[in-house]
């Protein structure tokens, strides 16, 4: 194989409603590696891209939330399987994006894949762990069950380009909500590759929408958007989270506040990233003949 072959470079686009459009604004921005070398041009999503993504996520919600928990688990596990097949590519992109050694990049990719597996196993346990029968003092059968919130806007972590992203995205999907994700601004490439994985696995179009670009700009539109039910501010740019939270209050959105600093994504997340995006529904019925 000759070493002077001119490489075919990849074009990175958005992932909206199961397709890979360019930003409607036509804007792109340069993405560099950790040392500042040019890697690619990424689409810079606009207000209207965010709007389209919300429309897609809303349209996908009814079916995704209505899918059996068992089936959702299988879909999530399938994501892990397909990611495994692109292991080398992910390692390379993570290493480039985050400036990690290849062994550390591999560890991050391994952990990201394992996180899908972990959440895949949660889908059909949540109702048992978070729901149940309530022994009310009267002739009624009364039970509570968790239900997905709806459309969740996620400002993904700025540092951890893949493990962090999966750690905030997978729990949203596991609970049955759909997602509009704004990726790390400076490290978006693993996210687009993840989009390609999602597109070729069994995740229905619109369930995940990935926008590359600036959370500072897009955060406001998503926080204010009346058809977004919840917002995860984990990757909100410093100093903007409070503003986004105030904007989210306009439609009583569920808000997951950002941690003071980006957490150690390898730690066991417990339920803390699922419960903020779950509602509890309680149903009463008389017991009689």
């Amino acid at each position, binding site marked *: 194989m000759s070493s002077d072959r001119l490489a075919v470079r990849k074009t990175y686009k958005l992932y909206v409603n199961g397709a890979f459009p360019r930003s409607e604004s036509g804007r792109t921005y340069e993405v560099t590696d950790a040392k500042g070398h040019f890697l690619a041009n990424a689409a810079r999503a606009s207000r209207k891209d965010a709007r389209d993504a919300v429309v897609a996520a809303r349209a996908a919600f009814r079916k995704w939330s209505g899918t059996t928990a068992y089936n959702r688990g299988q879909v999530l596990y399938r994501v892990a399987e397909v990611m495994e097949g692109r292991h080398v590519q992910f390692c390379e992109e993570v290493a480039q994006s985050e400036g990690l050694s290849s062994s550390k990049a591999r560890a991050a990719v391994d952990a990201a894949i394992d996180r899908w597996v972990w959440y895949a196993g949660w889908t059909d346990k949540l109702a048992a762990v978070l729901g149940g029968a309530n022994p009310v*003092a009267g002739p*009624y059968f009364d039970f*509570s069950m968790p239900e997905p919130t709806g459309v969740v806007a996620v400002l993904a972590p700025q540092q951890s380009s893949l493990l962090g992203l999966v750690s905030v995205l997978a729990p949203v999907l596991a609970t049955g909500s759909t997602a509009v994700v704004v990726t790390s601004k400076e490290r978006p490439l693993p996210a687009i590759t993840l989009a390609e994985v999602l597109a070729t696995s069994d995740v229905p179009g619109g369930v995940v929408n990935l926008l590359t670009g600036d959370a500072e700009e897009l955060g406001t539109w998503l926080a204010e958007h009346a058809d977004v039910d919840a917002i995860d501010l984990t990757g909100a740019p410093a100093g903007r989270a409070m503003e986004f939270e*105030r904007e989210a209050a306009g439609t*009583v959105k569920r808000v997951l506040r950002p941690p003071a600093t980006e957490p150690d994504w390898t730690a066991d997340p417990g339920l803390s990233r699922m419960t903020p995006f779950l509602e509890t*529904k*309680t*149903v*009463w019925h008389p017991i009689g003949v």
Partner: protein
Amino acid sequence: MSSSVFEYAPAPESRSIVDIAPSYGLFVDGEFVDGTGEPLKSVNPATEEVLTEVATASEADVDRAVRAARRAFDKVWGPMRPADRGKYLFRIARLLQERAREFAVLESLDNGKPIRESRDVDVPLAAAHFFYHAGWADKLDHAGLGPAPRPLGVAGQVIPWNFPLLMLAWKVAPALATGNTVVLKPAETTPLTALLFAEVCRRADLPPGVVNIVTGAGETGRAVVEHGDVDKVAFTGSTEVGKSIARAVAGTRKKVTLELGGKAANIVFDDAPIDQAVEGIVQGIFFNQGHVCCAGSRLLVQESIHDEVIASLQRRIGTLRVGDPLDKNTDIGAINSAEQLARIRELSDIGEAEGAERWQPACDLPERGFWFPPTVFTNVSPAHRIARDEVFGPVLSVLTFRTPDEAVAKANNTTYGLSAGIWTEKGSRILKIANQLRAGVIWANTFNKFDPTSPFGGYKQSGYGREGGRHGLAAYLKGHDA
């Protein structure tokens, strides 16, 4: 003998059991103290009689209360053995039961709700909430909320005027059971049972500062919510105020639960048990004068039985007894305030102006006080304001549907999502519709039932967080949002 009318002679509950002082202070650090704000008058809405004068807590007063709560949290309540915390709650529950009649009469005087409801619903349920949560105090490790869950600290709680004592119980009982201390602000028009509850805390020898009650209006509430040393904010009230609270706590580490407004659909299918459905419609909208966030204010009735249901409903409404809240036979009492009455009137007038048809039974209303007759609007379209805005009064809007899909679509066509009702004899349909409704509490073949073991709270703009059950504990513990 024939065609005699069975009139019920007045059967008033005696108010001699309550002893209302001419004025009340704030309850801070175990003592009643003067407030530094301009005092408020608490009025009996059934007569407009001034019952007493109640202190207003200024920002400085609220600060004193929060500091007392912090001290109590750090030095007494936090370190206390959980079993002992539970025992205090059991004591409070018993005292509420022992003084149930006093609480019921006082609640009806201050709020205007019928004594039948305060006696049979509000007060017993309030006691039940303390009993239920008392048992949790030393069992939190087993609540499925993670190992060794820890309290948040000081909870600032702001409650509405529709169920003054019951909302206090919903807030205070879980907060104390999980080891938090509280600063509670009752509603400005209904502070009296909260102040009697303060007396109960003293009788229970609850350590000073564990429960602090600061009376006042919106400004006092704001001071509680915005106080820098409050770790947890719990609010029940309007969606509008809920939003301002969510804005106010943005960027802080305060944990928040909001239980806000609603515009619940009560869906009646053609195979419903009609007589019970009619009862459920009545219970759904006229319970507590319709001053209920989860009131079934939108009746969605299948078109094929619309006329039959409306005829039955009107006949049934004709038997409702509107009047003196202290009369044991009263079904509908007084509207809580002149302000609320004005809002109900305004929205009803808009309903009529927009083309809906107003129906009210013939009923004599007392001359003094704030009253509004039970009201049904038919020919309501989803675009009418009475089909969209929360009236918070005894006003029912009737809409129709043809298919289950249409029923669900119309029911969910609201920015609220607190509750909903389903009436049908078909079990599989109940489960399907219950699944599709975006609301936190679904009553199937019943309505407006509450229990301390049963989580309550909304979807969408009806708020977030749950009160009651295991879920309600999570709102007062670190790191668990279940």
